């Protein structure tokens, strides 16, 4: 039974609550979070909209099966901590997913309210209870099963690695996470900017895992510092989970890509997010000074949007998205596109760069582009862009950021040839058990699927944890 006092008709009259946000003119000059979060009254008002449906389609839209209807019910009861604990049963990083999940395609995309109006703001509510839990400092750590004496090594500390670590440690295994960089969190730390996901949240979640008993070791590059065979051999681990992400930047392979001022989005974002280059010289890592410059970001995904909004915050005179298809095909979340536009980002759609131009000192001065039009649909179902003959033009820019995708980082695989990979460099793993071609070695997240989402990576981490637990228990 629901604690909702309103009859369904009344519920449907309540408009979807708006997320309070920093004013566009202000936020485009700082790195503080754009979305400010719902206050308790707004959250309650939003929760009242839920129809508490029997079929609760929302649940099927969530890749990890968060019990949405149940946690909303707990919000209505005013027990926010219990609501957070309910989410944590299926999702160990609710403060993260509440912020960065593409809800419009997942949970909210399946909400019945969306048929005739706007869906329930499930993401906002998830974020609300997770933030409440953090602010009270009462994060309920789950109970741990008795120690099994088994040890698991997890390679990579992104969402896939973290969620597997959380589940495995709860099941009584000893878990060590090995991370190549000096900070834990994967893309959550080095890729997604502070203004969308404050790093303090990631650190708190990592601390929660630490308190649960997960051991974290930074500065370990598996494949170089230690190999998978050594982990399973002399290092004494009973199983290995590879969650190394898709961190190999793809370039356009057009002339001039080596000019000074041309970045991969990975490098640009890493310099700012991980190394804090925007606080240079307080922090030592520099970044090319974007103040007063014209910056173009090539690509249409979340990464491109993050890079262009970061460039704006670094003081760019103009910051543009250059994308070869049209806006409907852009894979970035609608909210990010809206935010970017409000902040003053320009969008050059159906535009394809063909050459970077530079001065005699090899500094970027412009980008030669051609106009595109949409032809027949390609394999991905999106209409394929084709060049318009004779449409070349030059865009004057001094900074270009290439954000056209990533591939699997080969470091682990090249040192472990008995792990099968596909031609794109991704690891082949059983879709259910995530077992690779090598016994005792599992893999999941972006290194298996290619660049996907935080929640899909977390889902893979959970499935891997289940399969590893089964494997370890069978192997007694």
């Amino acid at each position, binding site marked *: 039974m629901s604690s909702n006092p309103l009859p369904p008709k009344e519920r449907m009259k309540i408009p979807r609550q708006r997320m309070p946000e920093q004013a566009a003119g202000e936020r485009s000059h700082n790195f503080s979070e754009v979305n400010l979060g719902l206050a308790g009254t707004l959250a309650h008002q939003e929760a009242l909209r839920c129809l508490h449906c029997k079929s609760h389609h929302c649940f099927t839209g969530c890749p990890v099966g968060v019990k949405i209807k149940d946690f909303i019910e707990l919000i209505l009861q005013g027990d926010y901590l219990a609501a957070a604990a309910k989410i944590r049963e299926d999702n160990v990083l609710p403060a993260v997913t509440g912020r960065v999940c593409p809800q419009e395609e997942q949970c909210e995309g399946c909400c019945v309210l969306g048929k005739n109006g706007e869906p329930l703001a499930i993401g906002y509510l998830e974020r609300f209870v997770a933030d409440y839990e953090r602010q009270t400092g009462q994060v309920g750590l789950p109970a741990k099963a008795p120690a099994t004496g088994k040890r698991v090594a997890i390679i990579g500390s992104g969402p896939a690695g973290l969620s597997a670590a959380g589940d495995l440690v709860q099941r009584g295994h000893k878990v060590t996470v090995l991370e190549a960089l000096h900070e834990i969190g994967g893309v959550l730390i080095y890729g997604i900017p502070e203004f969308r996901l404050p790093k303090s949240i990631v650190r708190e979640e990592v601390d929660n895992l630490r308190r649960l008993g997960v051991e974290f070791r930074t500065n370990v590059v598996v494949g*170089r510092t230690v190999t998978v065979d050594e982990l399973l051999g002399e290092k004494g681990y009973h199983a290995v989970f590879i969650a190394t992400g898709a961190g190999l930047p793809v370039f356009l392979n057009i002339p001039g890509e*080596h*000019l*000074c001022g041309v970045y991969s989005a990975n490098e640009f974002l*890493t310099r700012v997010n991980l190394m804090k280059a925007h606080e240079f010289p307080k*922090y*030592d890592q520099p970044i090319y000074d974007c103040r007063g410059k014209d910056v173009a970001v090539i690509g249409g995904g979340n990464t491109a949007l993050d890079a262009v909004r970061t460039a704006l915050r670094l003081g760019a005179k103009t910051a543009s998205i250059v994308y070869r298809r049209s806006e409907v095909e852009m894979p970035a979340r609608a909210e990010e596109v809206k935010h970017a536009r409000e902040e003053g980002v320009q969008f050059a759609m159906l535009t394809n760069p063909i050459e970077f131009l530079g001065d005699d*000192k090899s500094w970027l001065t412009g980008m030669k582009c051609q106009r595109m039009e949409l032809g027949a649909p390609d394999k991905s179902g999106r209409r394929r862009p084709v060049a318009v003959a004779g449409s070349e033009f030059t865009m004057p820019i001094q900074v270009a950021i290439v954000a056209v995708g990533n591939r699997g980082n080969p470091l682990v695989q090249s040192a472990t040839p008995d792990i099968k990979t596909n031609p794109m460099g991704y690891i082949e793993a059983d879709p259910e058990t995530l077992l690779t071609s090598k016994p005792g070695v599992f893999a999941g997240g972006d290194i298996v699927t290619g660049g996907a989402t935080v929640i899909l990576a977390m889902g893979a981490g959970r499935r891997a944890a289940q399969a590893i637990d089964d494997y370890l228990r069978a192997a007694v």
Partner: protein
Amino acid sequence: MYKIVEATFLAADVKLLRLEAPEIARKRQAGQFVILRIHEHGERIPLTIADSDARAGTITIIVQGVGKTTKLLNTFEAGDAVPDVVGPLGRPSEIHYYGTVVVIGGGLGTAIAYPTARALKFAGNRVVSILGARTKSLVILEDEMRAISDEVHVTTDDGSYGEKGFVTDKLKALIAGGSPPQFVLAIGPIPMMRAVSEATRPHGIKTVVSLNPIMVDGTGMCGGCRVVVGGQTQFACVDGPEFDAHQVDFAILTARNAMYREAERRALEVFEREQHAEPHVCRLGQVHPAAAPSPISAP
């Protein structure tokens, strides 16, 4: 934390540091490097592993103070610690038997070339070393190089030690002398590596250089270290740092390494102002290089 167990100046602004890093020490091969971050607000910088001692669990790096981070690192002493050291990174040097090899170290390049030179010697090669520097006080690791070379030549730009001239003068003389080497390894400033490459190209002598682009992660994730070799983009941190000299586009490397010059200058300025604000203790000359026991283990 990675503890420094030994810190010795080899020349003005060139310091040898031995650090505790047991896993790296066990794994490392000639030609590989580490990336360090030396304080909580620090940048990540690559440094070659000049030597390692698997039993003691230590690695040796030799640092030339050229900018803020390296100058700050050169104020570290035994007992201090570095928060982050990751490695060993990069492909190990390819070591083969060639016959006669010439190893050229320009300035600090000698420190980077030393471990590979030693491995080449172990592989049975006749090793002829050419050590170049601007002036006598900047010649480093001469004793160590002598210990693993069959022949050592020193050149200085100002003629204060060895022969006056450039390393390429000596190399050309060796080639013209009738017994050209089968392999050349050249490590030093970019103009030097480029000049060596041009000197060996007409003779078809296989030549390898170690490139030093600006790096961030060192794992192939950022693409900042990209170099052009044989017309192809390569990531020096995972595909290198050693490449076939005759295929390298040195002009692109030179240009890209200048990308942060303005920022580097500012960082150094701020750093030096702060250094001078504090009472300055000069640590140079505390241990005279000549008086110190050889800091690199004998082969």
